[in-house]
């Protein structure tokens, strides 16, 4: 049955692809090599601005392999459809951006089309980068052109059928992608508009902080509502600070503190967000961080979640969890889950504890780890991994307790969830 469904889906995708092919020319004209904008690209102020923008966009986060030269590519982004390697952004003629003109770079950022005219896979978040202004793209390009060229061949995506067909990509683009620069909202303040521009554009926050559908597309009418990051098994929480939002009650200062230092009185960054803080947001200007906070605080309230009632009686699990919490967790996180600001995050009211899936709390208990190293916290405290010490039931018990206690009110997690995430590869 599953196979019939799959074949049907594949045929459906192909049929839509055919129509999409008809409607949108699938391959655009190749662009000529770099023209003579060379002089303009030398402006040191432009280059410095480009460097800052590259940091905001965290380009190096994907375009640098583990232990590799910065921006020389080589890291593969895992997706549910297969792995997509991030290419070399250094100005090497043969393997990098050496032969790229600004027009080609702009087309990649704005339209998601490569220099050879082929559509790019949306693992490159052009769905967000299309909002970036042409001036900012030019500054970014100027900066990338100053990097030491590194010869590093780009890998090929290893995608499963039918996603390996470029025609599938035409379908995807027809369904989910509309190019367009950010348009300022005249009803909002300059600060709000700056925040919206950064969050929606280079910051590409929505690429993780929204639930994607089965084809990896992002819903049009909801942004930053939170979702499981595909193929990485972390949950990126809802970012609304209003009623029932993931960051309910977070002040401007809390948001700025988390992005700048990795920690706030409401929670700490971990997993993929720890990398984002260390490589990107901690280096952002305070004005930009405040603008981001102002924008996030304007996100709408969310509908009240359904009661965390489970048909199963979790009382025994919760009682065991309470005992484990008292012996294993309370000495750092406090008996009431209040944490210690700047040292250990609170667990009461923490969006990463109460997120719908339970993945984050389970994996943090199993993996432990250090809080992000930032200029504010260069010697962060850490949490011991409990994978060796606690079995699946113990982890389920303590996580269920933490999700339930102190008014957190989130549903319990199952032993089988722990078993699954115990074996999730750590990226």
């Amino acid at each position, binding site marked *: 049955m599953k196979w019939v469904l799959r074949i049907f889906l594949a045929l459906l995708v192909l049929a839509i692809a055919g129509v999409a092919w008809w409607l949108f020319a699938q391959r655009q004209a190749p662009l000529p090599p770099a023209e003579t904008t060379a002089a303009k690209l030398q402006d040191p102020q432009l280059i410095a601005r480009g460097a800052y923008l590259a940091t905001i966009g965290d380009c190096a986060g994907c375009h640098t392999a*583990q232990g590799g*030269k910065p921006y020389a590519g080589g890291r593969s982004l895992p997706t549910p459809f297969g792995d997509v390697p991030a290419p070399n952004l250094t100005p090497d003629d043969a393997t990098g951006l050496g032969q790229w003109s600004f027009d080609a770079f702009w087309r990649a950022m704005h339209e998601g089309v490569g220099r050879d005219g082929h559509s790019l896979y949306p693992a490159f978040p052009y769905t967000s980068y299309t909002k970036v202004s042409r001036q900012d793209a030019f500054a970014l390009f100027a900066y990338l052109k100053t990097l030491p060229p590194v010869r590093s061949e780009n890998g090929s995506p290893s995608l499963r059928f039918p996603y390996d067909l470029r025609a599938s990509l035409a379908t995807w683009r027809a369904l989910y992608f509309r190019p367009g620069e950010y348009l300022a909202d005249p009803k909002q303040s300059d600060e709000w508009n700056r925040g919206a521009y950064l969050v929606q554009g280079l910051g590409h926050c929505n690429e993780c902080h929204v639930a994607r559908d089965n084809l990896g597309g992002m819903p049009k009418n909801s942004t930053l509502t939170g979702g499981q990051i595909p193929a990485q098994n972390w949950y990126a929480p809802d970012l609304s600070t209003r009623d029932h939002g993931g960051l309910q009650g977070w002040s401007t200062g809390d948001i700025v503190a988390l992005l700048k230092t990795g920690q706030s009185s409401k929670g700490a960054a971990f997993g993929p967000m720890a990398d984002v803080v260390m490589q990107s947001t901690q280096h952002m200007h305070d004005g930009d961080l405040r603008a981001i906070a102002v924008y996030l605080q304007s996100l709408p309230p969310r509908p009240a979640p359904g009661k965390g009632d489970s048909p199963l009686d979790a009382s025994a699990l919760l009682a065991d969890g309470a005992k484990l919490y008292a012996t294993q967790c309370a000495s750092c996180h406090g008996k009431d889950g*209040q944490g210690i600001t700047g040292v250990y995050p609170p667990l009461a009211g923490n969006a990463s504890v109460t997120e719908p899936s339970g993945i984050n709390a389970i994996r943090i208990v199993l*993996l432990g780890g250090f809080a992000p190293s930032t200029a504010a916290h260069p010697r962060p405290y850490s949490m011991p991994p409990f994978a*060796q010490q606690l079995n699946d039931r113990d982890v389920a018990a303590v996580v269920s307790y933490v999700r339930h206690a102190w008014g957190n009110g989130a549903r319990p997690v199952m032993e089988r969830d722990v078993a699954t995430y115990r074996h999730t590869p750590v990226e």
Partner: protein
Amino acid sequence: MSLLSSACLALAILAAALPTTVVRATDAPTVPDTLKQRIAACTACHGEHGEGTPESGFFPRLAGKPAGYLARQIRNFQDGLRKYAPMEYTVRGLTPEYMHEIAEYFAAQRVPYEHSPVPRISKAMLDRGKTLATEGDPARKLPACAACHGTQLTGVEPDIPGLVGLPYDYISAQLGSWRTHTRAMVAPDCMATIASRLSEADITAVSAWLATRQVSVDAHAQPVGSVTPPLACGVLGAKEVAR
């Protein structure tokens, strides 16, 4: 200081300390501002003093190893030269300064060595292990372990680790890792060259013999420059290159 003034001082300290202690007891937990407290993620597996788990052989001893070596291992996990997902995850964000501070902490620890289990192998095999470790096998271009790791195999400051006091499982796993490219060093990788020249029986023999060595608690690495490595080693010649 007179008895009276000491008593007054003690009372004053108590009075000053009392309210905060009481508040903290009911409110937030108190956390010591020590490196040991900060690195709970390390000590959970490697032990509070870096003693490792000699009984299981899984988590290696860190205590007393040269700091340069330990810091380099953290860096190698960051860079993916050494492959072990939980370690790569744990150390991914540490700054070079913090890495060195953590390395110094474990290098300074002095804890007794514990005996770890060794597989039952023949005396001939053990003798073979001893020969490899102390004399090498010139015909196969295998230098003695002692040629680099020190005459007592306790390591050499600041970059070469001791080989004694480690469990059999750990040593044999590391030599195997060099052969399967899940452990590597900055090129030229001398240990990769050596491991590729060892047979599986050699690895068993040399790991078993090393694991049988008794080590005194005050054993320490030899001083800087006390050995002349017979092979070119990136980690010894070319120092850490900034990324």
